[in-house]
């Protein structure tokens, strides 16, 4: 288990927990980043931040600081 902010490019992950109850975690969950969802890390912006992930068939960009509250696990054998 690790934070989404620490994930590397190309990682296939599954969300375990979205912690915090501020504006950021609310928005992240509304955008579909809820426990159980599969996430692929695509790339980082030129200056290292923000970074781009793919979930539920669409692409989302977020800053590493915003991803720090999202706990992920390496994707197991489940279909994405």
């Amino acid at each position: 288990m690790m934070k989404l902010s620490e994930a590397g490019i190309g990682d296939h992950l599954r969300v375990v927990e979205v912690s915090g109850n501020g504006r950021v975690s609310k928005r992240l969950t509304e955008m579909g980043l809820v426990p159980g969802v599969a996430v692929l890390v695509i790339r980082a912006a030129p200056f290292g931040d923000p970074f781009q992930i793919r979930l539920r068939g669409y692409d989302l960009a977020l800053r590493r600081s915003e991803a720090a509250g999202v706990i992920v696990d390496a994707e197991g054998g489940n279909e994405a």
Partner: protein
Amino acid sequence: MNDGKATSAFDRTVALAGNPNAGKTTLFNALTGLNQKVANYPGVTVERKTGVWRAGEEKALVIDLPGLYSLDASSIDEAIARDVLTGERPDVPKPDVVIAVVDATNLERNLYLVTQLLEGPLPVVIALTMIDVFEKEQHELDVERLSALLGVSVIPVNSRKGRGITELADAARAAAQAGPRNVNKKEIEEGTNPVFARYSRISEIVQQTVRHNDRAAHRLSGKIDSILTHRFLGLAVLVAILLLMFQAIFSWAAVPMDLLDSGFGALSGAVRDQLPEGILTDLLVDGVIAGVGAILVFLPQIVLLFIFISLLEDTGYMARAAFLLDKLMSRVGLHGKAFLPLISSFACAIPGIMATRTIEDRRDRFATIMIAPFMSCSARLPVYTLMIAAFFSGQTVFGFLSLGAVIMLGMYGLGILVAIAAAFLLKRTLLKAPPPPFIMEMPSYRLPSLRTVFQNVLERAGLFVKRAGTVILAISIVLWALTYFPRTETTDLSAGPAIAEVEAESVQLQNSYAGMLGRTIEPVIQPLGFDWKIGVALIASFAAREVLVSTLSIIYNVGKEADAESETLVAAIRNAKRDDGSPVWTPLTAVTLMVFFVLAMQCMSTVAVVRRETNSWRWTLFMVGYMTALAYFAAFVTYQGGRMLGFG
């Protein structure tokens, strides 16, 4: 649209709701054509778009809600959408039915808003967009099953080709006539996170209705992104796009601008020929036509910028530019989305300020608006050009760099530095806020809809022209009156007729109220090295910066037709003497004047737009005040510092 009489003209009221990028605007345009009204919701800067949808014999009022991901009221957009849907906004009638626009290629996330809508009592109909793209990507969607599971009609539409619109009208009518739905509140158990619950329901629905042959959706977008958001290539493409934009604005726009300019000149001539001499004719020609003309000449540039901005928004590139530059922008406390509005402001602050609407957080948006006019716009170019032509032409630095080019670059650089510093300070004081979340969808690339771009440009350019016809017209007349009254009798001038006319103009201006004002403010501007004649030009240029050139031409007796490169004007500036015989202008004065023009808020169109976009006179006046104070201070430091160092 706030009284019963207006609403009763319609058979029903329809609200359009949907995620940003779901195709809502395109559908709205397809439904309403040019029957649209755009205003702001009072007190806030959220656009209120309404339109008339004629389907057969029926007429529906369509309310286009702001693009939303959720109805939880965590932003102003969401709060307003929620209020409209519950009928709590007095300025729009309560909708009879909601059309939820759902992008088939992004079904799961789009359905989130739908699940929220279904928790309310309003009848819902789903307009399913992008189904053709979805099927082309080898996915299958069971529309009937989706409709059955959600309990509402699902109508596939293609807004561009007009497909599905009739069916949508039928479904909306049926749903509206069926009336409010029974809301089963028990669907979401207490104690569970409602967001998680909605998404787990969505997952079930999607599992039963969608068959993906390849889960790697948006494959084409992914390929484009691997170039456009690439660490190095992405930045290179961004620079190329900006270069193209500026090439268009500064060289291609010159043709229609010259045409407009000579058009207004011809119009002035014609009016003068047709009407008898007198105050009314002077007012029409020198006040109205010249004043409004000076602003409308910038219309081609502004329209071109609007076209570029709309294209970048509509293709999905805007999100990429924000992604590429967010790190840079966030260092000064701004959002990545502030970048393009600021860059646009190098051509003209008006489109730039209007483009800040994509920035969701109010404080970020205001900080961006407050610094946008520091970007050297095209109206400052004539001023820089004149000053450089008069004092720095033909000189070089290090033997090969043109001094003029270096100074020009310096002025642009000064504006950028001050903007950065101002943003930094504003975000830590008046607009103090933690850095706004970046969390942003990277929408799939789309071919731009020409119709959407066209309507967008028409709407924004229309606003600008409306300003020119009202506020700017009024200020032009005031400024004209200041230079026109009191009248000076000039019949005793004995020189030739042509010279006499030019000289009479100059004498008139010197003795006018503007001239008096110039003398009044002379003690204030003396520390900047400016005399009262420059004072008159400064006062006039608060209408629009480039007016400085024509006012100086009048005051120095060379006729108002002179432009920034006119040799006679340049010579007149170089030869202007004070009463003691010393030259008025030195290279230091020229630099000081340029510094003042970089920083001062001298553009009534921008002031009018800022008032509209911030919906606040206080912020507008604050902007005028702090920019002008900063300009005075910087000019003071430049002049006095320069003198201490032995220049001028």
